[in-house]
């Protein structure tokens, strides 16, 4: 069983401070949806509104189509996994996992059996009688997941659950979480400030900044077609040019910058100023000038990253640019200090407004 979640014009104020501003999103049953954004942008607040610990100041939250205003967390079909997990240190693992069943009056033998099943599911056999303090970080993580799954929630809410783990374990748990989600079919709302995590795991991502949802789309779309500069910068690297839009034709515009006039896709500026964004991996280096969108530069630094080579350069007008070359043997390695040209395909570059924030 899984339910969809709808947020309609949801706002949340703390005193005069608006932590979440007019959030609208419709999350489908069984979807893995992530909220991605920097610390303090209101992600946890959204999650706490869905789970029922905070009531929205304005707007409606629907779970499975039903308005949940006024329902306490213990009356909602959601299970929240806390940022610090909040396992119960005085109970053995199996009681932790089945605490939700205990409060529902399930008898001890059934609970014990269910705990074993869930431990099986999260790959933690034989830990039932251990105490929380005896487990490692990754194992605690699994216990927290099992405890949430035990109550058979229709929606799982996860608040940066992997942030306390080391890199290797984090990558392993990503796959694990995704697998558990697919096995159980429960709707997951996942919160993270780690763009790699959000892009790798999610069906769709909502990127947030300063309480506002900037863009909701699938990971490819977010990365390839960010709607504004904030999204473009938060989910990857960019070469950024400041300038002014000149002529517009067929969604392409010419853009005058101190480094020259470039052609690029024109985003939805809506009358606002914009900047030109192009990713380093779409930036090419050549010894001679390209036909268009070409900047003369001096190579300032080359760093070898293994699977790719990162080249940093300074344009004649002082702008710092970078390009990433795939280390597939075909690229000709530029020399440090050499003169070269950096160029990019107009279809791969976009002129975008800055973030959507309150003025």
């Amino acid at each position: 069983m899984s339910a969809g979640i709808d947020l309609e014009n949801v706002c949340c104020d703390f005193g005069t401070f608006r932590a979440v501003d007019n959030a609208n999103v419709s999350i489908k049953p069984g979807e893995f949806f992530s909220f991605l954004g920097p610390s303090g942008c209101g992600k946890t607040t959204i999650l706490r509104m869905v789970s029922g610990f905070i009531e929205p100041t304005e707007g409606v939250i629907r779970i499975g189509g039903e308005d949940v205003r006024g329902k306490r967390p213990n009356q909602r079909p959601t299970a929240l996994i806390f940022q610090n997990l909040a396992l119960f240190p005085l109970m053995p693992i199996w009681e932790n996992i089945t605490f939700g069943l205990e409060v529902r009056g399930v008898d001890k033998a059934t609970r014990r059996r269910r705990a074993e099943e869930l431990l099986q599911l999260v790959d933690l056999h034989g830990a039932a009688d251990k105490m929380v303090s005896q487990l490692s970080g990754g194992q605690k993580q699994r216990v927290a997941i099992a405890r949430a799954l035990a109550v058979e929630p229709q929606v799982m809410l996860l608040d940066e659950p992997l942030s306390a783990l080391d890199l290797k374990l984090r990558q392993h748990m990503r796959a694990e979480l995704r697998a558990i989600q697919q096995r159980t079919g429960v709707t997951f709302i996942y919160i993270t400030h780690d763009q790699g995590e959000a892009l790798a795991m999610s069906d769709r991502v909502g990127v947030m900044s300063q309480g506002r949802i900037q863009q909701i789309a699938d990971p490819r779309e977010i990365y390839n077609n960010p709607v504004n500069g904030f999204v473009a910068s938060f989910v990857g690297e960019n070469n950024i040019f400041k300038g002014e839009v000149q002529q517009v034709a067929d969604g392409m515009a010419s853009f005058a910058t101190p480094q020259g006039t470039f052609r690029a896709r024109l985003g939805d500026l809506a009358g606002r100023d914009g900047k030109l964004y192009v990713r380093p991996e779409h930036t090419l280096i050549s010894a001679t000038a390209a036909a268009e969108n070409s900047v003369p530069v001096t190579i300032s630094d080359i760093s070898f990253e293994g699977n790719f080579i990162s080249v940093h350069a300074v344009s004649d007008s002082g702008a710092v640019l970078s390009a990433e070359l795939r280390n597939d043997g075909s690229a000709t390695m530029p020399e440090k200090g050499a003169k070269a040209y950096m160029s990019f395909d107009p279809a791969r570059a976009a002129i975008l407004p800055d973030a959507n924030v309150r003025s």
Partner: protein
Amino acid sequence: MQDLLRRYGPGLTLIMALMVAFWLLMLVIIPNMTLFEQSFRPYLPVTEVGGPRDTYSFNNYLKVFDGSIERSFLGFTFTIPVHVLTFWLTIWYSMVVTVMCFLLAYPLAYYMAKIVNPRSLPTLILLLFIPLWVSEVLRAFAWWIILAFRGPLNWLLLNLGLIEDPIRWTNMGYTGVVIGLVYTYVLFMLFPIYNAIQSLDTNQIEAAEDLGAPWWKIHWRIVLPHSKPGIASGSVMVFMLSAGSLLVPSILGSTTSQWFTQTINQWFNDALDWNTASAYAFLLLLLCTLFVSLAMWVFRVKLSDIAK
């Protein structure tokens, strides 16, 4: 010790250590040892002290079994030595005081630790502390006034229509004593519990609620177990202080309420028999300690929990 040495140098550290040793030795250990030794010797005229009759025995301790009276309880009639009865009543009502302190302190501690706005907490704590600045005697007398036959409490209850005739609070067995002791010692219960609850991660309470637990289940399974060390140390303090209190039972006691400390006091001041008084005092200490240990064993509290 290392810390002290580093901070104050050897000279000052030595002086401080000597002062602590002096305090312990002269003001705690020696007087108590003297009384302890006295408690095994008979009460004799000065001329006979050190004479042939001045020998060690348990006679002083055995005096608690003198002078039986008849009592009936739950339909059973039995005879019991007066002082033993006083002792049991002291223990029993100290327990009542402890339980009442817990019932008052736990909700307040939870409120202070988890519900109240942190900004108004200092004010709240100040309000709780102000009564402590007034001397214990005055506070006991204040209760004596409140509980008086024509006092404010009876006036209030009469006017609210809750009672028809004024109640002789201070003449109802141990009622006055219990009220006075609860009032005097409730803060010794409040602060350990407050500290314990405060150290509980609020996320655990929320996690329990999120998993569907009703409020009482959250307290029973999460908050109470977590605050057990605080409850234990608060209970031990309140119990020991109540059982050992002389002032409150003297002021708020009725004709039918005898506290064991009053019995000890009678031996000291009325009979001038310091030997028996010492014996009774050590008996109280010993039996209270045993009782507390028993209670800790029953509730599975470890000594190290309390020391935290």
